[in-house]
């Protein structure tokens, strides 16, 4: 990830502040920075979202395309993730530099969606064994300001909420050959239910306490972090330890509880925000990239 040079004194300042539940920008240990979410920003996609979390800027586009289902799961569609760390985010991502981080984030996304309840894959099936919808979720990292995983998971959830998949019908001829017909109305589409889509909460261990939504400076002071993926009901779908250091078993249990608590609140506010945005209707003023 982007690195930032910190002196010893700055590190000590951050660590001591965190022990007192006071971070550099005045937040508490469990507070998120101000999050801006906007959906439907890219017109050529089936769904898109842009999330700005402090200095971290993520753009996600979802494209629904027809393809053949996987052999082991003939009645389901699937999701494909791709993460591109563009060189705009930080100079370290120039050329192939961002590929490692991109694969790591994509693998984590595959892992958190790798269970039956996150997304209803059966609704993506058109005709078993032959056609299904494949959702290509492409994540673009525009700016890296710490806490990438959280921002990306929020953006993916918002983009999936915004995704509109056209309704198709399969018509069978007398000979048995199948034809796929797209409905005439462009607004006739199926929406995915994102009730159980999880969000990632990264908890960074700094000193004896852990913080949620760490900035780049705080990440530089932390040796180990726990990444927990929580659904809105408090069910954990993925857990991963990140970083060079080790964690005490007791802190892991504490961090899981905090992650669940914070995750539930995050889901509630994201859900209400997405519904509010949708209720503004198609005539709402889009902020886009100029705001």
């Amino acid at each position: 990830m982007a690195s930032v040079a910190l002196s010893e004194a700055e590190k000590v300042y951050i660590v001591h502040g965190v022990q007192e539940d006071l971070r550099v920008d005045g937040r508490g240990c469990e507070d998120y920075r101000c999050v801006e979410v906007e959906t439907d920003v890219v017109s050529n996609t089936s769904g898109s979202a842009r999330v700005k979390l402090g200095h971290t800027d993520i753009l996600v586009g979802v494209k629904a395309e027809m393809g053949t289902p996987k052999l082991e799961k003939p009645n389901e569609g699937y999701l494909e993730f791709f993460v591109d760390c563009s060189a705009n985010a930080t100079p370290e991502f120039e050329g192939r530099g961002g590929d490692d981080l991109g694969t790591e984030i994509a693998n984590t996304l595959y892992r958190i969606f790798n269970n039956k309840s996150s997304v209803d894959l059966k609704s993506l099936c058109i005709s078993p064994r032959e056609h299904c919808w494949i959702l290509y979720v492409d994540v673009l990292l525009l700016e890296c300001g710490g806490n990438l995983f959280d921002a990306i998971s929020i953006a993916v959830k918002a983009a999936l909420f915004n995704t509109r998949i056209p309704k198709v019908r399969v018509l069978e001829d007398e000979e048995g050959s199948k034809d796929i017909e797209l409905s005439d109305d462009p607004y006739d589409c199926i929406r995915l239910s994102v009730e159980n889509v999880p969000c990632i909460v990264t908890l960074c261990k700094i000193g004896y306490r852990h913080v949620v939504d760490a900035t780049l400076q705080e990440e530089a002071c932390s040796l180990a972090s726990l990444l927990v993926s929580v659904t809105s009901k408090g069910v954990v779908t993925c857990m991963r330890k990140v970083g060079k250091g080790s964690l005490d078993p007791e802190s892991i249990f504490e961090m899981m509880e905090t992650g669940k608590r914070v995750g539930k609140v995050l889901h509630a506010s994201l859900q209400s925000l997405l519904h509010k945005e949708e209720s503004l209707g198609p005539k709402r003023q889009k902020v886009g990239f100029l705001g």
Partner: protein
Amino acid sequence: MPGDHRRIRGPEESQPPQLYAADEDEAPVARDSTRLRPVYARAGLLSQAKGSAYLEAGGTKVLCAVSGPRQVEGGERGSGPAGAGGEAPAALRGRLLCDFRRAPFSGRRRRAPPGGGEERELALALQEALEPAVRLGRYPRAQLEVSALLLEDGGSALAAALTAASLALADAGIEMYDLVVGCGLSRAPGPAPIWLLDPTLLEEERAAASLTVALMPVLNQVAGLLGSGEGGPTESWAEAVRLGLEGCQRLYPVLQQCLVRAARRRGTAAPP
């Protein structure tokens, strides 16, 4: 291997016949959920590697080799900030490069060697679990390469690879704070699911959730944690982590004996 054009060509795509076979419906045998499979571990078996280890747990067979420390050019970043605990500055610390490979015949279906995303992910998990244990500050500007090869996957492959990798590092004489012991767990689907320690391949395939824990037994610090699936509420995951840590503690004496035997072997074989 590129296509062989002289022989009769088969179809473009081929699938193994097991995919179309009727479901075997082999229910996994009910067993004590805290049993660990007997482990066979041997260190110091490859002559070309600095350190090596072979670990067998049930059907899982993994071979790990360590080479290095090798000097690597890369001091262009100058003196970065010092790590916590007064260790050498970040640019001077050594690097640990891990590689995880599955042999093509290790699973039920043949997998061609560039395994793609999954092997990269497991290699990263190996690296993140081994870094806390290795004293990289003592190997400035050097690089250690750890490569794990899974010969047969019989369940909890990552856990076995972690254990074998730390045995190999110890066998290579790399300075470490402690050994890293890995343990796998899986949770069966169903109304009253329990976490099973050290699952077999069948149990893992039918699992609703799986978890791998890596522990440094003497320091009692968790070095690595990777889990996913429908595990349920946090209490269930916490119970699984506790079970895994207990399993790692039980495995530690076996590994200690293995290293002692390897050291004795090295001592008797040393030329006068």
